[in-house]
């Protein structure tokens, strides 16, 4: 039956991305990716406009067997299909857009912070913010966290991620109580915990609660690039086409109240005690980093992961050059190796290449 159809197409949500020495196909529907050789990438490009027979002929029929094998595999695993009507199946638009001025925010705090959470909530709502990450570097007892979160109970926020140090007051029943009270919490990470584990709650919840031993006592723990943080999904992939995947439409308040793109970046646009989030956002240069995409960044521009990887502009290889590669990435796209002291095991985290 397959033989009757002349064209092979990848499904529009399976998009190949070419790197310096190998390529991947990003499956933006099933949220995964697979490695392919660059030769297959080129063949798949040609297949967009030519029949399989024509492409085979273009390679003087030298690769017929290999092409058949690969296309068979891609068909079987539902990454592509055969058709005689390629025009009925247009590419997916890679447009990215969002109604809100700010889509995500970070608020850092420690024992000395004096944030006005009510004011923060009102201003984030005005900006349309949907996701908030709160990171505290010193212990927060349950009653205190409850009183902070109460401000956000009627807000437009949809997702709340909280990172805080573990302390004995946080029993499973306290955690359950918190998650129950604030259904917007999607992730709760207790660092400085006695052991690494996923905390199972005795209720049905979409919130994931993690205990990690690592001590996160300052903002410098951010910015790590690793396959477990890759996001092969449509919204990340499209946003990455012309925006920075970390900083775009983000606003942050560091533990001292300084308004920044990200707490780890040096530049402050004023202290929240004196200036509103909206006014900080309107300052020239606040949005400058939003459009730095991976195609402009050294090394990343040759990397096959560039549209699924989350960038970092705070920790970069050369602080004098805002277009230099993230410092905490140990991947070398030219050798296709994760290098130096990085313990990443690619095989474990990613689908095997064929």
């Amino acid at each position, binding site marked *: 039956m397959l033989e009757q159809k002349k064209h092979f197409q990848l*499904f*529009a*949500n399976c998009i190949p991305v070419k790197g310096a020495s190998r390529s991947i196909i990003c499956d933006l*529907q*099933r949220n995964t990716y697979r490695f392919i050789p660059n030769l297959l990438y080129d063949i798949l490009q040609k297949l967009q406009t030519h029949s399989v027979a024509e492409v085979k002929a273009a390679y003087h029929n030298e690769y017929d067997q290999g092409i058949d094998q690969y296309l068979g595999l891609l068909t079987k695993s*539902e990454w592509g*299909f055969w058709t005689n009507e390629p*025009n*009925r*199946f*247009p*590419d*997916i*638009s*890679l*447009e990215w*857009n969002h*109604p*809100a001025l700010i889509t995500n925010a970070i608020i850092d705090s420690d024992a000395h912070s004096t944030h006005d959470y009510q004011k923060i909530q009102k201003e984030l709502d005005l900006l*349309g913010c949907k996701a908030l990450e709160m990171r505290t570097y010193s212990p927060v007892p349950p009653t205190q966290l409850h009183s902070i979160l109460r401000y956000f109970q009627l807000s437009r926020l949809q997702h709340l991620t909280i990172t805080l140090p573990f302390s004995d007051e946080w029993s499973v029943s306290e955690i359950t109580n918190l998650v129950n009270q604030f259904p917007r919490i999607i992730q709760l990470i207790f660092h400085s915990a006695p052991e690494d584990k996923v905390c199972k709650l005795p209720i049905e919840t979409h919130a994931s609660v993690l205990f990690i031993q690592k001590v996160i006592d300052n903002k410098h723990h951010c910015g790590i690039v690793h396959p477990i943080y890759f996001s092969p999904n*449509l919204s990340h992939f*499209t946003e990455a086409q012309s925006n920075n995947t970390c900083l775009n439409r983000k606003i942050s308040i560091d533990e001292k109240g300084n308004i920044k793109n990200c707490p780890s970046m040096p530049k402050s646009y004023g202290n929240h005690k004196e200036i509103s989030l909206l006014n900080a956002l309107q300052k020239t240069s606040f949005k400058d980093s939003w459009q730095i995409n991976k195609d402009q960044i050294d090394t990343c521009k040759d990397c096959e992961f560039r549209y699924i990887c989350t960038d970092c502009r705070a920790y970069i290889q050369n602080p004098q050059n805002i277009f230099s590669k993230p410092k905490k990435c140990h991947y070398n796209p030219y050798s296709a190796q994760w290098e130096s002291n990085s313990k990443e095991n690619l095989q474990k985290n990613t689908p095997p290449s064929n």
Partner: protein
Amino acid sequence: MGAILIFSKMGEASTCEVIDWLDSYQTHFFRINDGEIHKLPTSIQLGNDHISLGLEKNNTSINEEDITAVWFRKTKTQEPPNLNGIEDLQIKRDIENHTLHELEAYNFAFYHLLEKKWLNHPSKKEINKPYQLHTAQKLGFKVPPTLVTNDKNKLLDFKKTHPNLIVKAVFRSRGFVIDKVFYAGFTAVLTTEIIDSLPSSFFPMLVQEKIDKEYEIRTFYIDGECHSMAIFSQLDQQTALDYRRYNRTNPNRTVPYSLPKQITERIQKLMAILELNSGSLDFIRAKDGNYYFLEVNPNGQFGMVSKPCNYYLEKKIAAWLIQQK
């Protein structure tokens, strides 16, 4: 100050997204949830030469003159008032029925007197399925051979010429919650064993010949434009009959689709006859190459087309609502 009136359900996600877009264009809106019309302080006053409609919510009110467009996304079925004091079951049922009709009429008074541009007027929210199929067929659409009946002899006759049958609800497939488990209404195969077990006359059903699919198509139509998605449900046994039986671990491939011009034109004609300016339409692209019309749902979910195809339909709907001035 102009504003857009929205009827929806509490927490309905696609409504919230459209509202976010309206907000980004600084457009005012007034949202009414779950048929709250009669729960809010509302009134209609008919004078000799004027009508005034009063709608009020959270201490803000909206004047009829200020409404520029109305979006009827969906609403909840009415609930009867609390009649716990009445012991006689027959009387209770009668009063329940009566109050439900009264509430419906009260709501519809607003719907009818709001002479605005509607994104589907609620009087069009239910369109009889056999009538849809008939209308589509007259416009040149292929439709699967269909029988609507309560008569076993007719069904057996139909089966002789159409051996592979499926059965659907005549009106709409709804689900039921039994012992806290949700049983969704799906399309099912009508086997010989099932037919044999039926009495000579039974509860009405809609029976169709099973069409051999290449893929399914879901089209969201708004004001002349078609936004379509192909659903490769055929790859998967679990969804081969009805893609709503989602396979969550390995979801059906859903990709943007471009309909032939002739089909788009027929859709435009069909929607005009049915007086719908938006809706979701289902088709089968058959192995024989034909496009079979299955049904149109006036208040269909557009999120399930918008998201996988990256169409930003929420933004398009917001823009349409804003344009109606």
